[in-house]
């Protein structure tokens, strides 16, 4: 693009009063950038001025020195133009009021030692904006060469069937793969189903058969039973999927990454890329590499993972105090459901009628915890099965011992209905033991509502064990990705697959793969159907976004993709390894193969690349480095006591908005700091920090999201990766004889705007104590 620049400085909102606008105009003038000022740039006259210059003068690259880019976004959007918003309002004059940082008096204006902090800050930010626009370009949508709209649903249970129907109803072609010989999954194995609609008070007959029937009305749904996914290769919009029979071995079975201990030679030295690949192929003998696409594979655009759950299998002796494993008539809820589906509830030991059944919700032992992998569903299921006992025997009795009856929301109605049943006894209580008593059982419990210690005679005891997501045992989705076949770091969620489960529940760390149903948490049929509908939407949304050449969440609509300058790649594999979304594969030589439709545009690859060869058209190593270079660094040549200059690299998702709120609340912090917004701290390349230190800046800090198990990073890993990089930079600083404390990273949440000034000022104070960067002025 042939750039024609224009710098526009707004004088509104106090900018004109706080700053010497004429002097500020000298900044663009010095660089021969045309500059105009406007009393209120967002006013009709202001916008007309901009539009006129765009239309008449051909201005297409605008630097608007006014307010934060978070506001008036629509007013200052000009199609086909590069626009940079220099935040003079929130970041300069609102957070550095003249009452704290006085403007020079008439005499001071000639005093060369007078430091006008606010004016210098504004000038720096303007220079930084001008530097940036010279190095960025407009993005164009990325289009796949081949694009496929079909949706693959893995799992033919209630969730998978529902997802397929919902997608088909919306006009999409769907294939369901199911490993069993028929559709239906777990929901087919039950006698009755929990209430799934208002008034939620009584059990219903299983609905899965109706759903299967409904599915048959759609000619656009293909069902493949006794089939599993061997591998999924490629990217959203263009996945190549290999199917196989369960248990079958094929050359397109997904390969697994090498375990860490195999990545080194006998001396513990890391193997080079080619040796690693050879070892990887050896480790996955008989399987094709991930980059070899199955010529007979089927094409899909997006995937819904609805592989469901399996019953929890107690380990040997795990519930010995409850007799499980020892006594045949102590069973799990899953086992009793099987008995109930086949007829009346009887005892496994002798087939006799089980007329007195005890349901245990918590393993007890001084803890009120439910069994692992349980949830509201397990409470509801106990009530359901208690009802079975009553259905089967008019004199039947069911005892439910719970710590907390978890019938949330409107399902409380079912609980209330069960309470009306004279033959069902519900009590809080800790079961301490289950023992044999003749041919029956004795259950002892304490701290109950029926008495301090009670004994119940039972024919059968049922443990409310949980629903384990099948991804705990096996990746299922079998992605032919260099990072491996499953979702990464899922262990922090006990293998439940989603990455931002509160705000953005369907997101996983793999673009185009959406998890639905009990693979995400234990769910009732009603919830699973609802969840399947949402996952179907996400799959469709991903397809349509890929088709438009734009990113999906969280940078929805972003058209940029990382661009690799391969000639300088050293095959270090870092980008492949660090990408939070596994978007990059590498070949046998270790050269990265980006998959743009898998990319979420966080820039983690750009941040980790030691050769700095990964860039986006509007966000690059160079664009940020040039902004840093544009910061004026006053030295002793300029002032007897030059001010410090400290760089803050701030996450634009949370920290930057928080800084705006600092300004909005007129909180102040050191005027010696200059901020550069970054897409995610994960995109921070240490070269920026080194550049800054080499240039004589006195310190650098990163301000971004919390990391760890309860991470708040929108790109899951970004702030964590940045933290690792920052910690490693200490050595480099030491080699320059600089204190490693000159570089720091701080975690803030978006609402902690009240804490930010203190964080900044404390850091500045610590740098002041260390004294200026000795490289200043060189």
């Amino acid at each position, binding site marked *: 693009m042939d750039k024609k620049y224009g710098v526009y400085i707004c004088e*509104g*909102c106090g900018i004109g009063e706080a700053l010497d606008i004429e002097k500020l105009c000298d900044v663009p003038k010095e660089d021969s950038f045309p500059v105009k000022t406007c009393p209120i740039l*967002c*006013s009709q006259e202001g916008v007309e001025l901009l539009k006129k210059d765009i239309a008449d003068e051909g201005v297409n690259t605008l630097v608007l020195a006014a307010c934060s880019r*978070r*506001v*008036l*976004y629509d*007013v200052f959007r000009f199609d086909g133009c590069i626009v940079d918003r220099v935040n003079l309002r929130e970041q300069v004059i609102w957070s550095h009021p003249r009452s704290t940082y006085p403007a020079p008096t008439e005499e001071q204006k000639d005093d060369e030692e007078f430091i006008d902090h606010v004016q210098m800050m504004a000038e720096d930010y303007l220079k930084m904006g001008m530097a940036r626009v010279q190095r960025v370009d407009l993005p164009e949508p990325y289009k796949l060469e081949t694009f496929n709209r079909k949706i693959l649903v893995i799992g033919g249970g209630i969730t998978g069937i529902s997802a397929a129907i*919902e997608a088909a*109803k919306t006009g999409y072609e769907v294939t369901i793969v199911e490993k069993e010989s028929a559709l239906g999954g777990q929901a087919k194995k039950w006698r009755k189903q929990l209430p799934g609609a*208002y008034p939620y008070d009584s059990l219903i007959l299983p609905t899965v058969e109706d759903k299967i029937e409904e599915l048959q009305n759609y000619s656009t749904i293909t069902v493949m039973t006794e089939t599993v996914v061997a591998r999924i290769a490629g990217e959203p919009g263009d996945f190549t999927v290999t199917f196989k029979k369960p248990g079958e071995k094929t050359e397109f079975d997904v390969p697994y990454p090498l375990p860490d201990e195999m990545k080194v030679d006998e001396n513990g030295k890391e193997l080079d890329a080619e040796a690693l690949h050879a070892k990887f192929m050896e480790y996955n003998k008989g399987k094709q590499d991930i980059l070899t696409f199955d010529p007979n594979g089927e094409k899909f655009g997006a995937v819904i993972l609805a592989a469901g759950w399996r019953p929890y299998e107690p380990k040997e002796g795990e519930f010995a105090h409850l007799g499980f494993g020892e006594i045949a008539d102590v069973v799990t809820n899953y086992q009793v459901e099987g008995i109930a589906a086949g007829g009346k509830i009887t005892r496994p030991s002798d087939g006799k009628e089980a007329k007195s059944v005890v349901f245990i919700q918590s393993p007890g032992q001084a803890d*009120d*915890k*439910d069994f692992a992998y*349980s*949830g*509201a569903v397990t*409470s509801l299921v106990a009530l359901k099965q208690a009802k079975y006992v009553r259905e089967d025997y008019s004199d039947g009795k069911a005892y439910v011992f*719970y710590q*907390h*009856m*978890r*019938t949330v*929301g409107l399902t*409380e109605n079912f609980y*209330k209905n069960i309470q009306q049943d004279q033959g069902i006894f519900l009590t809080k209580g800790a079961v301490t033991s289950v023992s044999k008593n003749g041919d029956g059982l004795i259950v002892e419990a304490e701290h109950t509502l029926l008495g301090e210690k009670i004994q119940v005679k039972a024919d059968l005891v049922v443990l409310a064990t949980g629903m384990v997501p099948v991804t705990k045992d096996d990746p299922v989705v079998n992605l032919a990705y260099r990072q491996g076949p499953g979702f990464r770091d899922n262990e922090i*969620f*006990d293998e*439940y697959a989603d990455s931002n489960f*509160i*705000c953005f*529940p369907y997101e996983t760390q793999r673009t185009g793969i959406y998890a639905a149903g009990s693979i995400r*948490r*234990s769910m009732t049929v009603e*919830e699973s159907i*609802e*969840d*399947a*509908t*949402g996952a*179907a*939407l996400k799959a*469709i*949304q991903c397809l*349509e976004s890929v088709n*438009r050449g734009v990113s999906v*969440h*969280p940078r*929805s*609509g972003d058209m940029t993709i990382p661009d690799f300058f391969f000639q300088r790649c050293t095959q270090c594999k870092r980008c492949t390894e660090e990408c939070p979304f596994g978007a990059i594969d590498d070949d046998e030589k270790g050269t990265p193969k980006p998959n743009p439709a898998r990319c979420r545009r966080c820039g983690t690859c750009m941040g980790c690349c030691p050769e700095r060869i990964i860039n986006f058209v509007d966000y690059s190593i160079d664009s940020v480095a040039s902004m840093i270079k544009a910061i004026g660094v006053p030295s002793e040549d300029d002032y007897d006591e030059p001010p410090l200059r400290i760089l803050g690299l701030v996450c634009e998702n949370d920290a930057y*908005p928080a800084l705006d*709120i600092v300004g*909005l609340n007129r909180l102040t912090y050191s005027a010696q700091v200059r901020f550069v917004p970054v897409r995610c701290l994960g995109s921070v390349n240490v070269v920026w920090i080194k550049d800054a230190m080499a240039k004589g800046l006195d310190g650098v800090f990163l301000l971004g*999201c919390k990391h760890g198990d309860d991470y708040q990073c929108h790109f899951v890993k970004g702030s964590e990766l940045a933290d690792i990089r920052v910690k490693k930079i200490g050595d480099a600083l030491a080699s320059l004889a600089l204190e490693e404390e000159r570089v720091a990273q701080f975690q803030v*949440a*978006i*609402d902690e*705007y*009240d804490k930010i000034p203190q964080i900044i000022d404390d850091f500045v104070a610590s740098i002041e104590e260390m004294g200026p960067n000795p490289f200043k002025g060189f």
Partner: protein
Amino acid sequence: MTEEKTASASGSILVVGGGISGLTTTLEAAEVGYEVFLIEKNPYLGGRVAQLNQYFPKLCPPTCGLEINFRRIKDNPRIHVMTLAEVEKVEGTPGNYNVAIKVSPRYVNENCTCCGDCAEACQTEIESEFDFGMQKIKGAYLPFGMAFPARFVISSDIIGTEDAQRCKDACKYDAVDLDMAPKTLNFNVGSIVWATGWEPYDASKIDSLGFGQHPNIITNMMMERLAAPNGPTKGKIIRPSDDKEPESIAFVQCAGSRDENYLPYCSYICCMASLKQATYVRERYPEAKIYVFYIDLRTPGYRYERFYETIKEDENIFLIKGKVAEVSEDPSTKNITVVAENAVTGEKIHQTVEMVVLATGMQPTTTTAKLPADLKYNEDGFILNDFDTGGMFAAGCANKPADVVSSNQNATGMALKAIQTLVNR
């Protein structure tokens, strides 16, 4: 009233309610490629979650997700947001609805730069509804720091007063328009998602729990505002009677919920909310004693149970199974004595604390105000979804009590149902 006709937008979706459910439905549908009108009766988006200090179980600020959602709105020209807007009339059938939207005046137009001069000039203070009346704010105000749209509002309370004129005079940007009148917009949409949300159950209806009688009994939503950095106390948890930092706090669970006299259902969120609020107290007051009186602690599922585990480790948090029967105030100290029967031991408990938080439940907004559309409701006022007829759907807490996780899940699904209506017209 003026009547303004906009171009018909067939093939578009109307989402009613800009809380977390409505935002999710809007964004998820618009990012598939559909045009969405999002209307919200408040002058800002975010609904109930905007008032929260943190989400459970991650203890992260809701503004984090909201800000991303606002950015998604800003980047998406297919979304049209109208605040201070309510549905007046809906006519038509699935795929083809004519809707009339009433937009109330904000008295501030799009010239607003958020400079704050109007608020500076305004002398009248009004009760902050956002803070449940716990503080007074200026008659010209920004709903909250990160509000979207980032535009001030002039309260109708000051319209016609000198103060209104002061605001107008103070504005350098010609953004205050005191002559703004309510207007009705008519347009055509293919489907409608009702995400009209919930309101906290009016705790003063529960006589035995003393809300409104004793100042140191507050609701859980008030607690959220007290704990929020942008709240009336800037995040300090202090008791209303004397601003004292409480050394002891009781949480009364099921304040209204699971009670045939009030809300017969379980409100889903209150157990987790109180446990979360216990962490607010603990963070500020490491020694404070916290008593939680409950019927059942409903922390279902792996993530919630894990959160509950961490709460249990705290030696100064006492979890007592027992429903609170009554409360009384000591007139001299303003302390509250909570009376409950321990359901397990049968022992009667009299616990005196400095402050009480009632875990009030959620009630759909449609309990009190039915919507001007052909919708069916259950006995509790939640909208029943009729998927066979289609066209109109309830999402989130308009449909059933739910937490943010479930609301977002549900709202995503309802976006697809709305799209299906358009596709299959």
